[in-house]
């Protein structure tokens, strides 16, 4: 997750089965702590390390706990402008020298999946929608944190505007730097989840995800995609760049 040392995950074996198990656990009814030892999945995986299997099940269980703890009405703390971290750190799965840029006039936000009106959106269209700003704490899965100032279109407003199926499970995000992630619909509809177009009252600069980043202070950094190019609404588990390598999918704060 950090520019200075791209990770070579050892648990890559975790990847292929994760999606399947995740989906199965999502479908399963309420899971009590007592039933933990009975968690399925492990018995059916033949070529897999039993320890990895248990860890994966526990991550899925924790995802459910995180979803249960999450409240759409609970807001992240708002900080004064004086608390903003300067400079706000750049962070990606590659170093800053590999930042990709697009022509803002040519850029379009593509829509897919369970959305009525899939007409692509230009920056001009998005700027015409109501904007909202926030000074919130960005927390990285690595443990560091930084306070920044973002503004843009509330995702809930946008999803309603384009006629998205708000009962769908997932909102998936694709980025033109080949990053991708997905979030639960509850978090997508959280009032502080925004399609950020500005940073510190200026047009979002390339290092912070120009032209669009999805900012959600209720989730860790790897769930806050930059360089966004497409948004989809789906009931099929979409995974994510880091999530497929072993970070927990919910990634909530």
């Amino acid at each position: 997750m950090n520019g200075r040392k791209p990770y070579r995950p050892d648990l890559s074996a975790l990847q292929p089965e994760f999606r399947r198990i995740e989906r199965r656990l999502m479908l399963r009814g309420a899971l009590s702590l007592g039933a933990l030892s009975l968690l399925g999945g492990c018995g059916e995986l033949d070529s897999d390390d039993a320890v990895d299997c248990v860890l994966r099940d526990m991550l899925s269980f924790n995802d459910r706990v995180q979803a249960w703890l999450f409240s759409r009405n609970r807001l992240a703390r708002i900080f004064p402008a004086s608390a903003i971290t300067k400079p706000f750190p750049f962070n990606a799965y590659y170093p800053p020298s590999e930042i990709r840029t697009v022509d803002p006039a040519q850029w379009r936000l593509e829509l897919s999946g369970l959305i009525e009106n899939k007409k692509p959106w230009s920056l001009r269209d998005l700027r015409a929608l109501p904007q909202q700003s926030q000074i919130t704490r960005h927390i990285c899965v690595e443990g560091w944190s930084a306070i920044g100032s973002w503004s843009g279109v509330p995702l809930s407003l946008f999803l309603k505007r384009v006629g998205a199926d708000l009962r769908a499970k997932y909102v998936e995000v694709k980025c033109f730097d080949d990053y991708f992630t997905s979030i639960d619909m509850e978090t997508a509809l959280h009032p502080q989840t925004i399609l950020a177009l500005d940073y510190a009252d200026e047009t979002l600069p390339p290092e912070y995800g120009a032209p669009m980043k999805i900012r959600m202070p209720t989730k860790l950094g790897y769930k806050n995609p930059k360089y966004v190019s497409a948004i989809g609404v789906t009931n099929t588990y979409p995974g994510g760049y880091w999530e497929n390598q072993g970070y927990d999918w919910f990634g909530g704060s």
Partner: protein
Amino acid sequence: MPFLQRRPGPRAAHPLIVRLSHWIAAAAMICMIMSGWQIYNASPILPFLFPSWATLGGWLGGGIAWHFAAMWVLFCAGLVYLIYGIASGHLRRDIAPVGPRSVARDLFAALRFRLAHSPGHYNAVQRLLYAGVLLVAVFTVLTGLSIWKPVQLGWLTWLFGGYDLARRIHFACMALIVGFLVIHIALVLIVPRTLWHMIAGGRLKPDAQNPEIVP
């Protein structure tokens, strides 16, 4: 709760439930510490890294997976122990610290290797250490929750002075627990039979005033 009360006749110096929760919590705590070091290494708050042989998980994601799995094991074992400890009077009888004078006396005796040790009876130094580590463990769980969920449990994070401070307190709690482990294991090495008693239970005469090992 009659089943929790002391039965007549020789009883185990360490009841089965204490031994089980001790060893399960010990294993989980080791996992928590080593995976915690792995997580720490991703973004250190002090100018050093933990050597990779002392970490668990192989990389940050693996460390997190271990940390958040062992978390439940430790939580459950701790909860069982605390509920038993309160209900049975074990915490009040054996763990609650006694006055500083007794601590000074027992500590002085211990440092001269003259502290009598009878299974199931906790001297003043033990009481202080065990009560201390239990308290620190509770704080570790609370600070851990506060940095895991700084938005959903924002009040807890606020209580610990905000995310960054809570993260440092969580680290400091770990350091205290590691410090406890060093002393605890050193004391076990000095009186090795206590290790066997913690495994097999040991036997204690019903007369608590005059504890002796019963063959």
